[in-house]
């Protein structure tokens, strides 16, 4: 089986869908000729031509809006927003139209489009290149939000996202674009949207994470094991729909839950998950759930970024607090 990093896995999925479905177009700023600033779409224009894989003018709003028009007219656009922070100019189109077209027209017009955006911090970048706003996006009814953490998952999820009849935000954790490689089948396969994955089985604590934080989480789980703590690790993979059942199964076993994500703590994904766990598994909880998140602050510039981004030690610290509750 070939070994691919995240960039290659995503490219592999795009390559498959372009060859498989003539309705698929791939476009974005610098996505065509150059192959994207991260080279994710590299080589695709050469293979499939400029009609199918192309560069757009520098206008996020029309990239989103025209994408919707294409989807309404029967195509399957896969558009790229160059950096997460640049989705903001396109938010109006995303929220007021992309997310609503199906409901507004009672299914006559739908938006089967995929919006790829590299997201997340830890890369010492300028402002707005390190955003993690999946909670904001997941809060919009009508959208699906998916965040792979590994190359294997990324390929399977992206194929599913493109084939999905609903608009999907495919958020790519750019920090780990090239950080590690994984065996990824050359042939196509699908991983269903809306399903989390238990990646490490454990007994005492449940840790939930996603995206680039999965790597941090794995390291923290190992640190915890050295302290005699058996931690079960779940990769959420899908923010909306959120796989509550997998988390509940784990919480009913361990009684103790911690959730790790980059984005700001308040009004975030962890808060939502805890609300659901309280609603459905309160009686199994032995400790107050803990959130290990970014602060309610603007992402600091590089010299301060390390304070913001959760590290394995910080996760371990929180896991120990969780373990020692209520002392």
């Amino acid at each position, binding site marked *: 089986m070939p070994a691919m990093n995240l960039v290659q896995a995503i490219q592999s999925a795009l390559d498959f869908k372009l060859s498989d479905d003539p309705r698929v*177009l791939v476009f974005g700023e610098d996505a065509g000729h150059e192959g994207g600033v991260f080279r994710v779409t590299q080589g695709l224009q050469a293979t499939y031509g400029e*009609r199918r894989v192309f560069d*757009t*003018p520098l*206008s996020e*709003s*029309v990239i*989103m*809006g*025209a*994408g*919707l*028009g*294409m*989807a*309404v*007219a*029967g*195509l399957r*656009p896969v558009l790229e927003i160059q950096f997460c922070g640049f989705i903001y*100019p396109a938010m*109006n*189109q995303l929220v*007021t*139209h992309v997310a609503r*077209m*199906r*409901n*507004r*027209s*009672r*299914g*006559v*017009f*739908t938006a089967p489009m995929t919006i790829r955006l590299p997201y997340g911090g830890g890369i010492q970048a300028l402002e707005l290149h390190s955003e993690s706003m999946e909670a904001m996006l997941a809060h919009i*009814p*009508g959208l*699906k939000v998916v965040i792979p953490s590994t190359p294997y998952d990324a390929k399977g999820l992206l194929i599913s996202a493109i084939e*999905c*009849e*609903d608009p999907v935000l495919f958020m790519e954790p750019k920090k780990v674009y090239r950080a590690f490689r994984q065996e990824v089948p050359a042939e196509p396969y699908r991983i269903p949207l*809306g399903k989390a994955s238990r990646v490490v089985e454990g007994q005492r604590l449940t840790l939930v994470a996603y995206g680039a934080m999965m790597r941090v989480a794995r390291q923290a789980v190992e640190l915890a094991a050295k302290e005699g703590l058996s931690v079960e690790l779940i990769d959420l993979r899908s923010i*909306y*729909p*959120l796989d*509550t*059942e997998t988390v509940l199964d784990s919480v009913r076993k361990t009684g103790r839950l911690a959730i790790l994500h980059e984005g700001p703590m308040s009004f975030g994904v962890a808060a939502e998950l805890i609300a*659901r766990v309280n609603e459905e598994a309160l009686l199994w909880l032995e400790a107050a759930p803990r959130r290990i998140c970014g602060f309610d602050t603007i992402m600091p510039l590089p010299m301060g970024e390390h304070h913001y981004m959760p590290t394995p030690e910080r996760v371990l610290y929180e896991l120990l607090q969780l373990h020692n509750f209520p002392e």
Partner: protein
Amino acid sequence: MLTSFDPLKGKRLQMLDEAGGLVKGKFQPCLEGEALVAAYRHMVRARVADEKSLLFQRQKRIHTLPVNRGQEAAAVGSALALGKDDWLVQSYRELGGLLVRGASIRNHLLYFKGSEWGSVHADAPRILPLSVPIGSQITHAAGIGHAIRYQGGQEVVLAHFGDGATSQGDFHEGLNWAAVFKCPVVFFCNNNQYAISLARGKQTASATLAQKAIAYGMPGLQIDGNDLLAVHAATSAAVEHARAEGPVLIEAFTYRMGPHTTADDPSIYRSKEEEDAWMPKDPLIRVQLLLEKQGLWDSTREEACRTEAAADTDQAMREVDELHETPVDEIFAWQYADRPAELRRQQADYEAFLKWKEAR
């Protein structure tokens, strides 16, 4: 035609003057005889439905809605230039155009009573739903046009928006995209002189809206928006150009004779004198005069046409009166192709509440 009326030189296409006389010019109208009569009927129906809608709103049978009065020529004339498979991307003041394309008055009333089903036109599938965020639909039109071009189709897209929309970023982004990719889109700007209370002169420092087309590298012309013949001819030419070459911008110079919506009071920001000055330019008057001159129309037919339109509108309202609540299941059914577990849970919880309420 598209390059014969240079907006930078203040040129404006007119074919039918206020008195109902044909204007001598290089270009001939494409509407005449029974086709012209049919067009006029559409305008009358649109006018009557619009007037009655205001009444129905005051009777609280429907909610606040925009008023179309004065813009019938722009809506009807442009829509008549489309072929069967062409797309209409509306803003919200094109009732005449929707009716031309096969949408029903019933749906119009149903939408403003508050049901999404009012946007579902069984007989007119290629009309996008009403667009609330101003100008945002312009980018959709560009995208649809892009898809048509990609698939090698012959259809075109007619995108309507107002003078206010030309200040929105999406106007700029959509026209720019369409020109770059040569999308078959006719961008039709209804310059009715007002964006709610802001007069056109304060909306932009450009002398005309049509000249903005130059910046995007596409043809642009200004036409008399109250002139059915000019609207129809210009749109027809634009449709041909769009299909063959690329997008066009038409500025239809018209006037919003009524308030912005049924909840607006224009007397706050414009004078009665100004409104009165536009009354003789009413788009219906000149067509009626022309048709009468040509012996194709008279007061009896006028009366009958209006009565029929009124009756149809009343009937449609009565049908809509019978419809009440959106069923609970519909609230949840149309968010996604499937129904995620969380949504099902929320629905079940709500239905449990309803049962409890029922039993009390």
